[in-house]
């Protein structure tokens, strides 16, 4: 194989691997992330000539396809539930006030429909522009802006409602919502 291809692929891998991993973990948890990341870069290697610059939106789109087509809803649900529990653990450096703000936001995020959650993650955690996020999820940038606007509004509502809810009720709502949104996407 020509070295040029190996070099380009390695550069793409080094530039994007951890971003793809973070995207998959934030949608479906660590338990299945390595498998999905591995398959994503296998596709990128096989179709290296098709990979555009910048490669990240393309790679996230591939990872998204794999999550949808190749991971059983049941496995994804279990893996994501474990991931969400780990989000509840405070980071060492956090002070108490930040912990509660963080925790409320993350819990609110987990209650949103999966489609909303994905857009928010692509924007806030991956730092994608609306046009890039639109390329990942396969819609027009205009549609994406509308959907992101709604997702932000729903997150704001969920975050403000969250501290008022009892912990037990909250946990129940989280599990119900996760079941429904995951089930909705199952094929």
């Amino acid at each position, binding site marked *: 194989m020509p070295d040029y*291809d190996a070099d380009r*692929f390695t550069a793409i*891998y080094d530039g994007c*691997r*951890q*971003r793809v*991993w*973070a*995207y998959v*973990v934030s949608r479906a948890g660590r338990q299945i992330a390595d498998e999905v*990341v*591995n*398959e994503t*870069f*296998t*596709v990128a*290697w*096989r*179709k*290296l*000539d*098709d*990979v555009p610059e910048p490669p990240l939106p393309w790679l996230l*789109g*591939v990872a998204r*396809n*794999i999550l949808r*087509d*190749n991971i*059983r*809803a*049941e496995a994804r649900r279990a893996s994501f539930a474990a991931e969400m529990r*780990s*989000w509840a653990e405070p*980071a060492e450096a956090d002070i108490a006030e930040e912990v509660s*703000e*963080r925790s409320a*936001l*993350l819990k609110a*995020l987990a209650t949103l*429909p999966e489609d909303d959650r994905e857009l*928010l993650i692509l*924007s*806030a*955690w*991956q*730092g994608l522009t609306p046009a890039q996020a639109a*390329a990942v999820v*396969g819609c027009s940038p205009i549609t994406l802006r509308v959907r992101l606007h*709604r997702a*932000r*509004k729903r*997150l704001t*509502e969920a975050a403000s409602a969250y501290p008022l809810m009892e912990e037990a009720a909250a946990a129940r709502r989280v599990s*119900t*919502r996760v079941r*429904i949104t995951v089930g*909705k996407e*199952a*094929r």
Partner: protein
Amino acid sequence: MKNDILHRLTAARPAHLDPGRPTPSPVREKELATVMTRPRATRRARATAQPRRVSRPLLSGLALATATAVAAVVITGTAPEKPGPAHSATSGSGSQILLAAASHVEQQLAGSGTYWYVEEHLGSLHKVPGKNYTVAVRTEQRYWTAAAKNKQWSQLLDLGARPATKADEAAWKADGSPASWNLRGETVTYAGKGEIQHDAPGGTADIGTMGDLPLRLLATLPTDEQALRKRLFALVDKDYNAPEKILDRIVVDTAVRLATTLPSTPALRAAAYRLLAAEPGVRSLGDVKDHTGRTGYAVALPSPHEPAELRLIFDKSTGMPLGIEKVATRSGDGVSKGELQDYTTITSMKWTEDAPPFDTDTEDPGPISAPGEEPDAEPAR
């Protein structure tokens, strides 16, 4: 905009999800080594990053939470016999049965007309929560395809739910014969709502033109099964970036549609049967009865998308498809192994000059809320 919700969310990102972190060195070495020893695509393809379009409209009555009822349907039917093909003695393996069906179906006359009309009865089986019986949520779908123009019209009718089998019917009667059921937050009724939606091409609710296989390509597909498989793979590969095993599954899915409800010529339909005959795990189920009581013969093949088996039923006198059933092959996600999950019975399929009886869409009911989701807070004016 420090207080913007997106900025707050960015600040709340768990540390391990920081995309700027380096990949741990051992992981990097191992992953690069594994991936880069895999085969490359040989051709230099045009860069495409298009998402795969939705291949079928939503078929389940359950999925259509908001819809406009315009007609009531008079219900006279009774619960069907125990669904699913009954096993019986048969000669030949599943592959041999499919190859024989291919030889049979390619002798059919190629019809012609302005519209390819397909009418299907669909049933989706659901256990009633807290009860000991299962109901079939039934819909009828009609679609008209103008293949030359790559356009499609469709109409969906809610035919109401019924106990799935005789045993389910007895349990339903013992339960006081309720006329509606709440299934996972959505209510289905015995009576059904009649027509709930129709779509004309180009409208707001348009479903597109049959997904990943543009209809204009049908006439160009090879009728040799190996060439067909190769061509379908190339088409899918161009349009969808995914591992080869997923592409292979989409090829099988497309072949099932070429074999069943797409306006394939007899030769193309036969090629699709032969492609499926070469799939691993194809087996014969012998003579069966479909959900309208027609006798046919069936083969089963692994579902390309889930732990399930697809049962294709064929007409004995023509080799044409009568329908498809899906049976779970693993317990989980609310189903048990061996259970019928849904069925599609093709009740009419023909070329016709009769235009669809509508040329507008059902009024857009607005965004459909997921069960339990808060309604959109925007004022509805």
